[in-house]
C-alpha cells in the first residue's frame, strides 16, 4: 500500500517523528495558553525561556555535576523562579495598561536574553549527552525509534494531561479558571490574586524550561534554539484558540503530525504548512478550533 509512491512504513515513521515535534509544540503552547488565560499577556519570551531550560540543564551537567534526571526537575524550578522575578519586577507594572505592552516587554526581554547568551556562548551551541538509560533504539516494527524520542512523547503527554486534569478537576484549577473569568471577584472572595498570577506565570515558564530540558539531548543547546520555534508555537496557539488549555495540547500534537506528513510529501513547505492551516482556520473559525467567541 503506497501513498504518493511512498511506502507505508516510511509514512508511519514520519508520523511518529511528527508526534515528537508535536510534543514540544504541545508543552510550549500549553505554557503560553496558561499564561495568556490569566495574565492576558502573550509571552514573547517563551522561546528564550525554553532555551534557558536547556542551558540550565547543560550548566548543571557541565559545572555542577547535576545529571539529566535531576535537571529535569531543577532546571524548570530555577527558570520558573527567574520567570516569577520578571513578573514581579516588570510585568506586574503593566496590568493596568493595554495588553499589547506585555507583548512588547517580553519581546524586548527575549532580545536581551538571547543576545547575552550569543555573546557568552557563541551560536553553534553545545552538545548534551543522552542519559545512559535512554540510549539506543526501540524496534517499533516499521522503524527503529531512539528510546529517548519515545521518552519525550511519553513525558509530554503525561505532563499535558496532568496539567489539564489539575486545571479542570481540582480546587486550585477552579481558582485559576475563576481568575481568568473575573479576577476582582476572586480577590473579593479572599484569594490572593497577585500571588496566584505570579505563580501561574512561573508555572508557564517552568513548562517552557521543561520542554527545553527535554530538547537538550536532541538538538544542540544553542542560544537561538527558541527564537524561530516561538513563531510556530504562536501559530499553534492561534489555531487551537487562545487561552484554551485542551485546544493547545490537541493542536500542538496534531500539527506536529501534519508537519511530519508534509515533510514526506513536500519537504520545503514543512515550515509553512502550519501558517497555511492557521489562515484557513481563521477564515472559517476566527476564534480558533477550541476557542470561544468573545
Amino acid at each position: 500500500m503506497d501513498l504518493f509512491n511512498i511506502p507505508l512504513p516510511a509514512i508511519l515513521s514520519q508520523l511518529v517523528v511528527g508526534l515528537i515535534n508535536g510534543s514540544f509544540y504541545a508543552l510550549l503552547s500549553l505554557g503560553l495558553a496558561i499564561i495568556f488565560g490569566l495574565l492576558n499577556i502573550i509571552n514573547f519570551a517563551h522561546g528564550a525561556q525554553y532555551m534557558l531550560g536547556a542551558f540550565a540543564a547543560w550548566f548543571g551537567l557541565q559545572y555542577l555535576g547535576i545529571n539529566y534526571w535531576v535537571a529535569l526537575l531543577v532546571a524548570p524550578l530555577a527558570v520558573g523562579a527567574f520567570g516569577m522575578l520578571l513578573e514581579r519586577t516588570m510585568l506586574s507594572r503593566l496590568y493596568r495598561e493595554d495588553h499589547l505592552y506585555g507583548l512588547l516587554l517580553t519581546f524586548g526581554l527575549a532580545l536581551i536574553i538571547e543576545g547575552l547568551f550569543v555573546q557568552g556562548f557563541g551560536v553553534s551551541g553545545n552538545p548534551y549527552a543522552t542519559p545512559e538509560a535512554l540510549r539506543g533504539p526501540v524496534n517499533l516494527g516499521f522503524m527503529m525509534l531512539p528510546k529517548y524520542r519515545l521518552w519525550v512523547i511519553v513525558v509530554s503527554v503525561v505532563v499535558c494531561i496532568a496539567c489539564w486534569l489539575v486545571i479542570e478537576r481540582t480546587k486550585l484549577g477552579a481558582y485559576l479558571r475563576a481568575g481568568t473569568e473575573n479576577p476582582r471577584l476572586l480577590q473579593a472572595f479572599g484569594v490572593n490574586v497577585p500571588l496566584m498570577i505570579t505563580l501561574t506565570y512561573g508555572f508557564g515558564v517552568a513548562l517552557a524550561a521543561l520542554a527545553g530540558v527535554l530538547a537538550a539531548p536532541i538538538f544542540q543547546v544553542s542560544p537561538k534554539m527558541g527564537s524561530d520555534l516561538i513563531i510556530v508555537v504562536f501559530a499553534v496557539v492561534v489555531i487551537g484558540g487562545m487561552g484554551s488549555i485542551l485546544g493547545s495540547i490537541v493542536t500542538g500534537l496534531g500539527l506536529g503530525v501534519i508537519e511530519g506528513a508534509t515533510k514526506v510529501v513536500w519537504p520545503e513547505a514543512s515550515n509553512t504548512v502550519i501558517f497555511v492551516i492557521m489562515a484557513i482556520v481563521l477564515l472559517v473559525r476566527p476564534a480558533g478550533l477550541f476557542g470561544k467567541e468573545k
Partner: protein
Amino acid sequence: MHFARTLAATAVTVALTAGAAAHAAISDDAVKIGILTDLSGTYSDLAGPGVVVAAEMAIADVGGKVAGKPVVLLKADHQNKADIAANKAREWGDVEKVDAYVDLVTTSTALAVMEIAKQNQKVVLISGAGSSRITNEDCNPTTVHWTYDTYALAKGTGSAVVKEGGKTWFFLTADYAFGQNLQKDVAAVVEANGGKVLGAVKHPFPASDFSSFILQAQASGAQVIGLANAGSDTTNAIKAANEFGVVQGGQKLAGLLVFISDVHSLGLPVAQGLTLTTGFYWDYDDKTREWSKRFFDKTGKMPTMVQAGVYSSLMHYFKAIEATGSDDGPTVVKKMKETPVEDFFARNGKIREDGRMVHDMYLAEVKKPAESKAPWDYYKILRVIPGDEAYLPLAESKCPLVKKS
C-alpha cells in the same frame, strides 16, 4: 622651435610621471582594512571574532606599517545579511576610504560587496564565503577568493568517497543558493566518477529537527548521505544521524562543508569517521602548528580554515602593497596575482586571473575518540589534493576575465 618641442615633450613626461606617482602612492596616508564578518550569528564560531584576531596578528607581524604607512583595522558585523554588508561596504568606501574588504562569511554578503567593488575598485579578500560563483560567472577583477569553494569541496570529498565505494548518494540540502550550489557541484563529481544520485531532500534553512530528513535518507537505501549544508544545520543533521543509527545501518555520512569548530562542538564520539575536505588543518606540520599555537594563545581555540585564510590573505596583500608602493585596488591585485603564495597556510599557492587562489587542499577523516591524543587532535589527513586538481580548471570557467586561447 626645436626647443619648444622638447619643452612640450618634457612637460608631457613630467605630467605622466606625476600621474604615475600619484597612482603609486598610499591614499590618505594609511592602509585601511575593513573586516566584514559574522560577529554574532550562526557562523561567528567559524569566522567572527577569530577572524579579527587573525587580522590583528597579521598587522602586528608587519609591525603595524606597510610601505611606511600605518595599517588601520575596521570591523563590522554583517549579520549574514546582504543589505547590511553592502551598506557598510559602500559607506566604508565613500567615507572611511577603506582599501580592502576582508572575509565575508556568506555568499550573499560576498556577492553584494563585490557589486560595490565593481563600482569603487576596492580589493575584496574573501575567506568565509564558499560559492564557486564568486570566481566563476560572477567573477570580478579586484576580488580574490582565498580559502575554499564549493567546487573544491565537491571535488575533494565527492571523488574520494566514490572511490572508496560509495557509489549511490542521497543529499540533505539546505534550501538556499549555497546548499543547491554545493549539491550540484558534488552530484556532478559523483556522476563523473561513476556514482549515482538516488535523490535529495531540500530542508528549510535553518532547520533544527533533522529526524524526518534522516529517515528519508535511510529509506532511500543510498550508501552515502551527503550533507550539503553548513554550520548548525550540519551539526544538527549529524547528531540526528547518530541517534537514528545511520552509520550502524551501513550508510556513510559525508559532511561536505565541515569546519573544525563544528567538530569541536559535536564532540568526537558523534563526529568520528566523517570524511571532509578542508583548506587548512592546524596540526599538519611545524609551520601550521607554530602559527596555530599563537592563535590558540589569544583565543583559546584552534583556528578554522577561514580564520587562518584571513591571516594568509592579508599578509599577501601587504606584501603586494610593499612591492608596488600603492594601495590602488587594480594595481595591488595585479601584483598579488603575479606573486606566488607560499606560507604556513597555502602550499603551492597562486592567484589565477579569475581571482581564485589555488592551493593544496586536504582530504581528512575525523578521528575516533581513542585515536585523539590531545585536545583539538581531530583530523587524520588522508590525502593532499593538489590545487590544480581541487579547483575548477580555467578551461571550464565562465568567468569573462579568463582569456580563452
